[in-house]
């Protein structure tokens, strides 16, 4: 008698279950409050900008600055951090991860679904904030295609950050702290100071994606679109592969009580 009899995988059904379990972990009051604050912040600035009329200055310049610093530099990575780490970290901590990894569902599929969940949610929420900020600051027009460019950019960033932070949740016990250090220290300070590091910064890749899609002035010497796409794809692949392998022997705080 062999253990490896033909195993049926319910791809869609298992994805629904994995998303449902992840969704339940994102419903915490603190997490939702954090998400709302991050999303509302650029919109509040846009309302202030719009309320001052022509005294506020060029709306394109304002939007590029808001999208680049408040959304690309803060909201998108932090939302991805909260969503990418919440499910796996909590499940590792309370031991319920065991119920996922003692099934026949392929491990890489578990990781991929969780990355997609965090990515789609991060991208959608960030895009909502981009659209809200653009509408509040510049009305229904999209001057110099800046809102469209940054919508694409935050979707790209959502996927990339989600993969990165999902990997952190699987491989470290302090995923949230490690992620914050990356966002605030590596991306916020070092990658701006040392141009060579921009090739290892998701934020710079996001800028690289947005720059050719808008005629507005954007920072110079950014990674190319090709580089950003290849690097992000590699990051997602590495996360799914290594994360899947990690789930064969997951870090669970204790199997016993």
């Amino acid at each position: 008698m062999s253990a490896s009899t033909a195993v049926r995988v319910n791809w869609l059904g298992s994805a629904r279950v994995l998303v449902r379990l992840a969704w339940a972990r994102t419903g915490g009051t603190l997490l939702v409050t954090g998400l709302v604050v991050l999303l509302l912040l650029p919109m509040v600035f846009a309302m202030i900008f719009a309320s001052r009329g022509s005294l506020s200055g060029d709306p394109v310049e304002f939007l590029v600055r808001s999208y680049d610093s408040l959304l690309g530099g803060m909201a998108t990575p932090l939302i991805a951090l909260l969503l990418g780490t919440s499910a796996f970290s909590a499940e590792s901590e309370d031991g319920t991860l065991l119920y996922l990894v003692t099934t026949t569902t392929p491990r890489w599929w578990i990781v991929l679904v969780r990355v997609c969940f965090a990515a789609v949610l991060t991208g959608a929420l960030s895009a909502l904030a981009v659209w809200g900020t653009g509408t509040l600051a510049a009305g229904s027009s999209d001057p110099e295609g800046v809102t469209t460019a940054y919508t694409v950019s935050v979707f790209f960033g959502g996927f990339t950050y989600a993969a990165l932070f999902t990997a952190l949740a699987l491989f470290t016990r302090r995923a949230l702290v490690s992620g914050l250090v990356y966002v605030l220290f590596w991306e916020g300070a070092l990658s701006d100071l040392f141009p060579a590091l921009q090739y290892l910064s998701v934020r710079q890749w996001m800028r690289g994606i947005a720059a050719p899609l808008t005629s507005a002035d954007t920072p110079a010497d950014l990674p190319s679109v090709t580089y950003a796409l290849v690097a992000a794809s590699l990051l997602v692949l590495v996360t799914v592969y290594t994360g899947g392998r990690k789930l064969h022997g997951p870090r669970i705080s204790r199997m016993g009580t």
Partner: protein
Amino acid sequence: MSHPALVFENVSHWYGDVVAVNDITATVDAGITGLLGPNGAGKSTLLQMAAGLLPPSSGSVRVYGEVPHERPQIFSRVALVPEREALPGMLTARAFVEARATLLGLPDVRLAAARALDQVEMASAADRPVQEFSKGMRQRTKLAAALVHEPSLVLLDEPFNGLDPRQRLHMMQLLEQRADAGVAVLLSSHILEEIEGVAARILVMLSGRLAASGDYRALRRMMTDRPHTVRVRASDVRALAARLVADPIVLGVEVDADALLVRTTDYAAFSRHVLQAAMGLPYGAASPASSPHTPPAVPITLLGIEPTDESLEHVFAYLVEHR
């Protein structure tokens, strides 16, 4: 060719410098096998290796002839019930068991979940969120989630924790039914009485090693027939020692400050004999000896009698020395 459900062959596992499991060789097949040992003996590590969640540092683990590590397919026939009570609290018991059935790729998720919940007597509470459940209900929900795909090898880590006597009996009956149907069950416990009468075969672990294995009754006899050490406190320990040394069931007496440490082969009989000795009665007599030549013995006040080596660790240590 038919393979045994689970085979450990010289299996060891260590975490850094700490050896959790040390050179274990054992086979588990259809029927119930108890994995007995004190906390920290390495039972959970052994179960995790059996489920393929941990690779052995040395030796080999085989589930139906295959290495289980990094092979999720084995879970089509294997179930692991962890000791931890944690369950996704926001789900109902039914949703949780259905989620497991889906992740296990079962064709009729609803039917399988309903059947499993019914088996563990959780059908009536199936639509309540698990965060409202008592410890016993959580245990049963975990068991339903494990049995939902009717596995042929079930690994249970301390499954009786938190169950009241009726629930315990029901779980035992359920496991016995599965065993009778040809399922191999390996259940761990640190309490001998918990698996008394359930497991026909027992593996005893102590400090990561297999201290003893075999038929339950033979091991039970070894555990109860062993010498006991009893600490007796009395108003005059030396006088009491002089009376006790004559008792054939007493192997030795040692004066330890204000108490006696008595080694005996029969703890139950000793409990009676020490009372008689304190009262100055000969063993088996109901009243003091009335020989005109011997002065009546002065009664001694007993202040306390307690066994010093009743912990499971002592029992297991004895087994290790005498196997």
